[in-house]
């Protein structure tokens, strides 16, 4: 689905959903003038570490393997002649029901990385519950875990 997020956002909760998508532009692009100092973006570095971990890690490989293992191959256009019919019948139901879980798990890891960015920019003393979407609130503990895990992997 195509969504256009207008930049003319109010400063309330309505603007929050669009912020993540333009965050890196506000932080990484725009005019820089040498004579000015720039605010430290210490927390923001967590973002890039997280992304790297998500993209190339043992977890990713195992997750992909798991997802493929459970993917319903027979619904695709290139049905393989290699699988005996009886196996199809036995695994199809289970495969279909489990695939969703595995794949949404993959998406969730990326979401965690995204959420740790949200954590990073929120700052410590920044509860602002009235602005945070419900989805963000419920995942905050997971996001913290993800962020601290990344720091560990950076040190090792």
């Amino acid at each position: 689905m195509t969504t256009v997020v207008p930049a003319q956002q109010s400063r309330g909760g309505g603007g929050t959903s669009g912020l993540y998508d333009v965050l890196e532009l506000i932080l990484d692009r725009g005019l820089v003038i040498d004579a000015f100092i720039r605010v430290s973006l210490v927390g923001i570095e967590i973002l890039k570490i997280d992304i790297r971990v998500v993209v190339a890690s043992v977890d990713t490989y195992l997750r992909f393997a798991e997802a493929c293992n459970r993917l319903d191959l027979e619904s695709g256009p290139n049905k393989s002649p290699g699988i005996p019919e009886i196996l199809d019948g036995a695994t199809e139901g289970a495969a279909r029901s489990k695939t969703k879980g595995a794949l949404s798990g993959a998406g969730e890891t990326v979401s965690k990385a995204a959420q740790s960015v949200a954590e990073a920019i929120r700052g410590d003393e920044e509860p602002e519950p009235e602005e945070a979407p419900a989805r963000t609130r419920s995942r905050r503990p997971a996001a913290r875990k993800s962020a601290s895990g990344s720091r560990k992997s950076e040190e090792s």
Partner: protein
Amino acid sequence: MSTYVYGIARGTLPDLGDTLLGIGDPPLPVRALNEGELAAIVSDCPPELKPRRRDLLAHQHVLTEVSDKRSVLPMRFGSVSASDEDVRTVLTRHADRYEDQLQRLADRVEYNVKAVHDEDAVLHQVLSEEPELRLMAEANRAAGGGTYEERMRFGELVANAVRAREVRDARIVEEALAPATEAARPGPEGGGWFLSLSMLLPKDGAEPLLEAVAGLENTHPWMKLRVNGPLPPYSFVES
């Protein structure tokens, strides 16, 4: 008191204080520093400025409001000058450079497009198009998932195949959108998307881009495209 700078505009701006609020808690009033043909949009800088969500939104909001009426060179978030006087000095010293850029970007806005894959669809595509991977998947499944090493090896091959499709699809998107834009620049790398592309468009000239995006999603249903705009031209200013 140090001075936080949001952007540089052309012409003299009236005092913005009553209508426009900037960063800080409570939000600080925004004002203009007029110097020659240019005006810096500034506010006081709160102590301990950090990239908080509220302040990022405020930075974006100020630029959006001001650029609604005139062309603005957006500053990167967090640009702080020691004093108003120092900002004026910079405006005077580099006036030509900023005026050239303001002219180039007059009546122009940035749109950013991010492309992501539908993972389910792409994994299906990988196993359909790569017989070796499909055979491995079937063998692993028959063996109850395979050993740890088998799953690692297989998962890495799948990850590489997914990556190859990201590269392929990034090129497809770039080529499809190029005719609808005046200029395009890659966005910073970030999380969750395989392509971030910022494009410069005439104000009120986004229709061809939106049509191209819709067309791409129709012909490539395994891709999702997210469009953000109009934005101040963050990616098209020269520092």
